[in-house]
């Protein structure tokens, strides 16, 4: 009987961790210190181990959750994101007065939802995962209840997110109307049949699902919530959101569109092409005008979502492998970059403006150096992992014949380098402001996490073979 639960063990571990965190918080005496962060780390590690053990087994639960290698790869990405987030959070939660128990519980529930969404092969379960992660993330965005900016950001995110979830659900309804089932496999079979290409039901379903996904991955023109949400949320939450939500959403996106609706790709590929191009262009061009670090990274996230969509447009095997590799690299880099921003702040001042970075090299050289590496990786400079990831994605695009999209991609990369460099210029080449940010007390665990991130980035930049092969091997099982 337990065999049928095997595929959801990773999500289950994390959810159990969340429940344990809530319980620990409930029974905690005021002022008593309970290592809830450690609890979170344990549950994440357990989940990661479970995913590793499930590798290659293609387990399936109830026909709706499939722990195939694709889903397990994304699970591992999510575990990495979770670990980094928890480590950075532990450094800043006390400082910012954020309730630890609720925070960790919500984070773990969100990760559980993300894992579910990435491994689901049924549209309703995808929706379930989507809602679990969304609700947790909405609350996390507004978790600093004493900040009006946070509350506003959370509210905006919630309203727009609820709207897009409605679109998504409507799309599921159309898909059900088309096929009589919400499972991806029957949908794929029905859609590849005769006459499916011009079936208005199928087209509606695709269109509405596209809207839902596009919102979640912050594709243009559904991206308007992203800068506000990232700016209002605490920096560690913004990092978590930018990486985790995208990982889960792109996982489901790839499954639904490349596998289920893959046969009618001639219908949706041109639209996706346009969305990808717009996203890359708008994300980078508007990002140039930003002066707030979190907003800047928000627009950079939008641009990276564009690059990931290029992989979906390409749709070939290289594209799917590229998607997975890029997700991992982007996740590590982005969470770490937001982590650095989080470490720069204090209780009263978020210190997330561009001018707060002035002269950072002289005050905190290690932090400046680490942030530089992350920015170079986001910009796609060799020998960082970001370069290999972009290379992989553009290879896929060129291989599938979308050279134009590749050209747009590389040119927008150059534009994005401009605003990444702006931060570097501030740190190294501008004199310190007369009102410098207060000295930073080094948090050893956070430093270790940042150092490991840098090592991973350079390792994947110089010797990416192992991971590339792993990613390429994972996609064979997609569906």
């Amino acid at each position: 009987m337990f065999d049928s639960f095997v595929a959801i063990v990773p999500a289950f571990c994390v959810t159990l961790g969340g429940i344990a965190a809530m319980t620990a918080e409930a029974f905690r005496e005021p002022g008593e210190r309970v290592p809830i962060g450690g609890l979170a780390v344990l549950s994440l590690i357990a989940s990661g181990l479970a995913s590793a053990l499930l590798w290659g087994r293609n387990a399936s639960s109830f026909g709706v959750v499939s722990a195939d290698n694709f889903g397990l790869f994304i699970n591992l990405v999510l575990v990495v994101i979770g670990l980094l987030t928890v480590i950075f959070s532990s450094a800043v939660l006390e400082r910012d007065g954020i309730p630890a128990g609720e925070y960790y519980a919500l984070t773990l529930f969100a990760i559980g939802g993300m894992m579910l969404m990435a491994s689901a092969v049924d549209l309703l379960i995808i929706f379930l995962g989507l809602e679990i992660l969304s609700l947790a993330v909405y609350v996390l965005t507004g978790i600093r209840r004493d900040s009006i900016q946070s509350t506003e950001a959370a509210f905006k995110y919630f309203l727009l997110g609820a709207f897009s979830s409605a679109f998504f659900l409507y799309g599921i309804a159309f898909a059900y109307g088309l096929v009589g089932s919400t499972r991806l496999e029957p949908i794929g079979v029905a859609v590849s049949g005769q006459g499916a290409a011009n079936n208005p039901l199928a087209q509606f379903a695709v269109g509405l699902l596209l809207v839902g996904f596009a919102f979640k991955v912050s594709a243009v023109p559904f991206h308007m919530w992203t800068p506000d949400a990232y700016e209002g949320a605490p920096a560690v939450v913004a990092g978590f959101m930018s990486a985790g939500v995208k990982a889960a959403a792109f996982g489901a996106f790839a499954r639904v569109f490349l596998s289920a609706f893959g046969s009618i790709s001639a219908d949706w590929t041109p639209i996706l092409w346009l969305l990808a191009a717009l996203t890359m262009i708008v994300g980078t061009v508007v990002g140039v005008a930003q002066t707030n670090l979190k907003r800047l990274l928000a627009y950079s996230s939008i641009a990276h979502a564009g690059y990931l969509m290029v992989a979906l447009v390409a749709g070939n095997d290289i594209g799917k492998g590229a998607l997975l590799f890029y997700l991992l690299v982007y996740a590590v880099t982005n969470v770490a970059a937001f982590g650095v921003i989080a470490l720069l702040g204090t209780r009263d001042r978020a210190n997330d403006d561009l001018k707060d970075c002035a002269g950072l090299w002289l005050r905190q050289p290690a932090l400046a150096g680490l942030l530089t590496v992350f920015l170079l990786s986001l910009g796609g400079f060799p020998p960082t992992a970001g370069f290999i990831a972009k290379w992989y994605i553009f290879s896929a695009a060129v291989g599938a014949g979308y050279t134009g999209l590749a050209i747009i991609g590389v040119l927008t990369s150059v534009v994005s380098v401009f605003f990444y460099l702006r931060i570097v210029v501030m740190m190294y080449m501008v004199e310190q402001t007369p009102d410098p940010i207060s000295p930073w007390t080094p948090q050893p665990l956070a430093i270790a996490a940042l150092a490991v991130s840098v090592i991973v980035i350079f390792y994947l930049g110089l010797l990416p073979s192992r991971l590339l092969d792993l990613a390429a091997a994972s996609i064979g099982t997609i569906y």
Partner: protein
Amino acid sequence: MTFPFLTALIVLPLLGVVSLIFINNRDNQKERLIRHVTLIWSVVVFAVTLVMWAQFDGNSAEFQFPERYRWIPAFGIDYSLGVDGLSLFLIVLTGFLTPLALLSSWESIHGRVRAFSMCILVLESAIIGVFASIDLFLFYVFWDAMLVPMYFLIGVWGYERRVYAAVKFMLYTLAGSVLMLVAILSLAYLNDVATGSYSFDLVKLYDLQLSEQVQFWGFLAFAVAFAIKVPLFPFHTWLPDAHVEAPTAGSVILAGVLLKMGTYGLVRFAFPLFPEAAVFFAPYLAGLAVVGIAYGALVAMVQPDLKKLVAYSSVSHLGFVVLGIAAINTQGMQGAVYQMLNHGISTGALFLIVGMLSDRRHTRLIAEFGGLKRVVPRLTAAFLIVTLSSIGLPGLNGFVGEFLILLGAFRWNPRFAACAAVGVILSAVYMLWMFQRVNYGELTNDKNADLRDLSAREWWTLGPAVVMTIFMGVAPTLFLRPMEPSVDRLVERVKRAQELTASACGRCDERVREPRSSQRVGVGPHAH
């Protein structure tokens, strides 16, 4: 097994960087130690390049000291290195100029000396990597990697408008190279279509038969990236800012070696990979080159700033190199490759001298100088030799290169050669006029009265460069002979394609009517 010279050359500077990490320079106490350690590493690298040269077989056109390891098999990317006559001397030049650049910054760079030295060493490693790579992916990695330390060198240790210059340099060069990235990806993909294996290996890609359409766009993509680097008019606007605002060491390496990466790219990649397109574009390249020669010279003539004058003279001189390449014959190409070395040494030396003058007076304006011969006669003497070398006086190195280029260009297209020859006169005008204003005449400015002459360190900095300008002028065959086989092979490869086009003119009409979509070989999500 032969000693892995090329990997050693790439790794040695990085080992230097690692060794510097262990020298903790708190309170700037260890500045001298850091400078000496860095200098020793760079001299060791130079020594290794000389040993490699000694073991180089000057009769072979093959890639020598080859090293190949599987790197990313999924993409057909290998860690593949090799030198031939075209790249050998550029690597030696890099090894030669880096210690000189370090020596020149001995007194002028204070503060964050360790980071400065690390930047120079990483830059050296990346530049050698560019010249040594024969795998397109590896080449691109080093090409982009080179931008980061140069950006920091200009932006952190430069002069007043350094941030603007650094960002301009970075973005301009990057914009060109990303288009090259798409072209490289397309080449690998086309190789896959043609031979069934995805590969970035240059030797394999040389044999790829590409349609005219593909060659046109591919050449354009590569040529734009290299034209920005050279810099070819009108892509040169980043150069004056970058050169002027960079610290002396940065300018020496930028002018001496970095600009050569553009011309090297043309002869190593753009011309042999797309031979028919190269033949088609050659007149346009030559035209832009000639315009650059004249334009660079005329603008240099009116510069009040010494460093900017030398920067524009670079635009002018490298126009000659591109003209030689565009001629696609042995003399032109050999002259071009030789002139790359000459320009590196003479312009590098010019920047060293300008740096010495600006260190003493903290100004680079020509009007501030005058009559320096009376005060610093030895510096003036070295200045004179380098200026004459830059002009192309027979007996010095510049003459050999320019003469070969003009000869090759004349054989190809006399009009271009005639225009370029006018450029020789113009370069004499602006250089000699500048030299006269700075060194001869009355001592117009009292602040110049007590400048000190060359110190021992400065002798060591300028001396090798001056000696090389004379040596390369009287014994050019030492350098020309090893280049010959590679240059001949390159010319032959491009000419062969030209002949194929000419002989196939009977089928010309069919080629012209080839549909545009033919390069997309039926792919996309439905392809399999």
